[in-house]
């Protein structure tokens, strides 16, 4: 593997992303709109649960950030599928770039985009919605990085098992919707039915929201997010392992449109 080659592919991926910024605008501005709409609702809900002094931003800001980060899982997959659509996948494979170079070149931009998106939404949440981190900011950052890793790895798993861009779209949307809803990004887990509460811990969003709650409402320190971060990193490793087993460089993937 060559870092220069990986860097060339990374630069190229960012260039392509910036050529069509509609996706970036969607994952940045839609969550802000949703946060503005949902914050009063969450404030009422948290008050009804006996959480005093809650503004609703504690749920709305990280919840929308995580939910829309989950929507981004398909974006990393499209970085692979469009190569097939443009006929450039075989060119890359026949070049001096190793498989590791290509993977790094594709996944680093996807990871970075999600990371920047979450960081930007959390930062904007402070002046716009009164989002406050009463506990460890470092803990908050650790949760952001860990959930971004888990979601990027999940995106790679979905990519590995999809044969067409339609499958990627369907599986990615299904996964991100389930993660957002079941994991408590849209509705706090405490308000969900018992069966949903039982399966919520299987989603990365659940652990991310638990970590965010620890450093906001519960004013926890770095140690308070240890369990969520470890679980998220474990999920990242699991998804990454599945992706590594299932992904075939020589496989032809069908890209629609």
């Amino acid at each position, binding site marked *: 593997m060559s870092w220069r080659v990986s860097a060339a592919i990374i630069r190229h991926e960012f260039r392509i992303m910036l050529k069509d910024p509609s996706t970036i605008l969607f994952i940045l501005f839609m969550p802000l709109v949703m946060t503005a709409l949902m914050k009063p609702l969450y404030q009422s809900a948290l008050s009804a649960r006996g959480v005093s002094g809650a503004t609703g931003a504690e749920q709305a800001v990280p919840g929308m950030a995580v939910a829309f980060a989950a929507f981004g899982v398909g974006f990393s997959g499209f970085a692979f599928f469009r190569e097939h659509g*443009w006929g450039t996948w075989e060119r890359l494979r026949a070049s001096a770039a190793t498989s590791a*170079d290509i993977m790094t070149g594709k996944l680093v931009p996807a990871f970075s985009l999600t990371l920047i998106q979450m960081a930007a939404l959390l930062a904007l949440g402070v002046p716009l919605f009164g989002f406050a981190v009463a506990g460890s900011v470092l803990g908050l950052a650790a949760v952001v990085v860990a959930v971004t890793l888990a979601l990027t790895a999940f995106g790679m798993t979905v990519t590995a098992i999809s044969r067409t861009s339609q499958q990627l779209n369907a599986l990615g949307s299904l996964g991100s919707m389930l993660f957002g809803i079941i994991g408590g990004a849209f509705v706090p887990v405490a308000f969900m039915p018992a069966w949903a509460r039982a399966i919520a811990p299987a989603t990365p969003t659940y652990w991310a929201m638990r970590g965010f709650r620890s450093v906001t409402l519960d004013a926890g320190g770095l140690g308070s997010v240890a369990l969520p971060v470890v679980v998220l990193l474990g999920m990242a490793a699991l998804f990454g392992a599945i992706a590594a087993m299932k992904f075939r460089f*020589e496989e032809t993937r069908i890209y629609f449109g």
Partner: protein
Amino acid sequence: MLVVRDLRKTYGTTIALAGVDVDAAPGEVVALLGPNGAGKTTLVSIIAGLRRADSGSVTVGDVDALAHPQRARELLGLAPQDLGIYPIVSVVQNLRLFGEIAGLRRRELDQRITDVAAALSLDGLLGRLAGTLSGGEKRRLHTAIALLHRPRLLLLDEATTGADVATRGDLLGVVRRLADDGAAVVYSTHYMEEVASLRARVTILDHGTVIAKGPLDQLLAAHASAFVEMVFDGPVPAVLLGDGVTVEGSTVRLPTADPGHSAAAALATIGADASRLRALEIVEPNLESVYVTLTGRRYSENAPEDADVMAS
């Protein structure tokens, strides 16, 4: 530079390559000829490390390309059969990406881009989005990406398919110059006339087997003869059948040393069947007639899988 020995590949029950030997020395253009399904693309893909062979050996330079495909890829450039460019970035950004991957840096990369753009008439298009280029311009960019880093082995899979006359001329000129500079070139094509302009050594593939190879003049001397081809509405008149005559459906091919005389004689012989004659063509000795001699079939992009009858 390239040595392929007894290369075999099957897809399920379909035999794509049935023990192929190919050599390409530095400075040499090897033209791979053969109809669709002959195994050309499979062969090129295996050499480039894109597909696995069932058995055999491929050596690129001094690298065992089947055991170490990554090392082999560092020595070669590939222009696949299907167009492969990034349409939403500029021409120069397409070239820059693959140049950087090949290890070119700064001034050297800039110089190579300038050189290849000039050679393929892309110099006025470097800032254009690749997706807005014409078909011929895209084909030039597609090929330019493969030869930007001046590979020691260049693999071009039907590089001129769909190209206009000017683009074809540019591409063939650049390929020949690259070979003159010492590269080995494997050039898969359907166009027999390109072989002569490239001064290529010929390898003819048919059903995954090399049925002939060598310099063009030697192949013509060994296998080519003129023939008269007649196409009838309905069965071929029995009076035309004889030694060396090939029948394929309603088409008959009569090998001859004197095609004009043979055509006249055939017309006189068929009598009333002349009313069913739909076409008559005299084919002079060339690669087409080599192919007919070796396979009993005309060479075409959509050649039938099997000749119907070999009359005797």
